[in-house]
């Protein structure tokens, strides 16, 4: 198995003459927590869509979990998990039904599904609520459960698109605790966020500006490099260079 979870080389996506993603190159090591930051419209979402295999790049190379981004998207999809703030779980299904469903679409065996479901319920202290509808849960719980669902088939890499938006500060930290737990077990985490304190929880972060990666390093090194006291300042410093607007 490759030591690199994600390898991207000069990856680009053009919409007409508009370069949404402009030759980005980066590596993510196995078990790394990689923060993918940028202002609205910098090209984060487009880049992420290419990496999870639902959008074909205009040019460049990339491999995810050792699979080619052009020809092996089916294999990629089987080996990654994805969670976004917008879509997470089915509101009108119970917790148990949601987990069974996600286990089912990834082809897990019945005993595996049962075992994993118990694990998740124990981890989240949700045993009692197993048969409760997801919509009756508070947002923070939903997000934690959604993360568990994304992790349900033990993917090599999990992509998290603003997973903690609008979540209360305590739950946000519990969420990151889960992220770290997963990373320690060898799962690679690729995460976007608008909370700059969360950026500092990442092992490394990349900053996208106008479709390009303008900076990439550990939070500590970035702060040094930009002579800033917080990631907030680094972000503002970089994002101000942006010349284009657009989502």
């Amino acid at each position, binding site marked *: 198995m490759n030591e690199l979870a994600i390898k991207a080389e000069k990856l680009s996506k053009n919409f007409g003459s508009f370069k949404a993603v402009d030759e980005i190159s980066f590596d993510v090591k196995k078990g790394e927590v990689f923060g993918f930051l940028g*202002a609205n419209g910098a090209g984060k979402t487009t880049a992420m869509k290419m990496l999870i295999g639902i959008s074909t790049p205009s040019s460049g190379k990339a491999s995810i979990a050792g699979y080619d981004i052009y020809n092996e998207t089916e294999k990629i999809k089987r080996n990654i998990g994805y969670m976004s703030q917008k879509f997470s779980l089915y509101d009108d299904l119970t917790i148990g039904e949601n987990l069974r469903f996600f286990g089912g679409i990834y082809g897990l065996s019945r005993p595996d599904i049962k075992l994993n479901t118990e694990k998740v319920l124990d981890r989240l202290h949700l045993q009692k609520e197993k048969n409760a509808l997801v919509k009756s849960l508070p947002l923070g719980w939903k997000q934690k459960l959604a993360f568990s669902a994304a992790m349900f088939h033990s993917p090599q890499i999990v992509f998290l698109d603003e997973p903690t938006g609008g979540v209360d500060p305590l739950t946000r930290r519990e969420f990151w605790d889960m992220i770290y737990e997963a990373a320690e077990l060898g799962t690679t985490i690729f995460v976007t966020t608008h909370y700059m304190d969360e950026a500092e929880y990442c092992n490394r972060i990349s900053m996208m500006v106008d479709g390009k990666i303008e900076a990439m390093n550990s939070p500590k090194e970035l702060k040094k490099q930009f002579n800033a006291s917080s990631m907030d300042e680094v972000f503002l410093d970089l994002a101000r260079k942006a010349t284009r607007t657009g989502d």
Partner: protein
Amino acid sequence: MKAVTINQISKTYTVQKEKTIALDGVSFDADLGEIFGIIGPDGAGKSSLFRILTTLLLPDSGTANVMGYDVIKDYKNIRKKVGYMPGKFSLYQDLSVEENLEFFATIFNVKIKDNYQMIAPIYKQIEPFKDRKAGALSGGMKQKLALSCALIHKPDVLFLDEPTTGVDPVSRKEFWDMLSELKQHGLSIIVSTPYMDEANRCDRIALIQEGKFLSINQPNKIIKEFKRNLYSLESLNNRIALKALKEKNEIHSCHPFGEKLHITLKENQEIQFFENLLIQNKIEYQHLEKIEPGIEDCFMELMLSKQ
């Protein structure tokens, strides 16, 4: 007169026989010309509160006044006096920037040029794109247009429900700069946000969680109410340190904050005591200092004390 006065407002929703308490007897006043922030996570009841204040929703109990008018009896008067930007507000995507603004001006029975001064600082930034469809604007520009539309009739009170949610830090900062500028015109602004770091841009804030206010005050006073000594610790591996600290009886709370850990002790001891504790337990650290808490520290402390 106050811009907003609410007293013991409660609101419960019943969806499929399941009751959800959105607001549980909340009260506050907002003064004229102040920026009043309602800060809390999604689902805390912020939107329900805004809809009650903008006369879109009737409270189950309690009273509320906006510019001296009762939200139930005098709703027509309130509707003439307030500007409102709902959380999911997204303008008419197929109308141009100018058409959107003109439409809202006429709906509120004003002419753009009469009130241009009010919106000028904001609208000037998007005026070069006035023929562009609203749907083709970037997030930040949409926000500016929406704000211009909510302001065009020179309201006395402006209600902004989560205007910065999902917006990147740069656009958020710009947005708050605009609000500070508007305040100079004497406008009263009630704004909600899930981002704790925006609290300092408000004159006063109410921290809201599960339909209840945890605290209402000026941001710096809320920080002063934080009675414990707060320590910031930096170590090579925060996770190991965090785990070790959480097991100690002497520790009241320990939360990661960026690359640091924020810690409070049960007995409010001085830093020397804490250092000894760390050494005794062989908890490795690089840097330790006593720090001023932020709003997020306060919010979590208040959440924990309510639980």
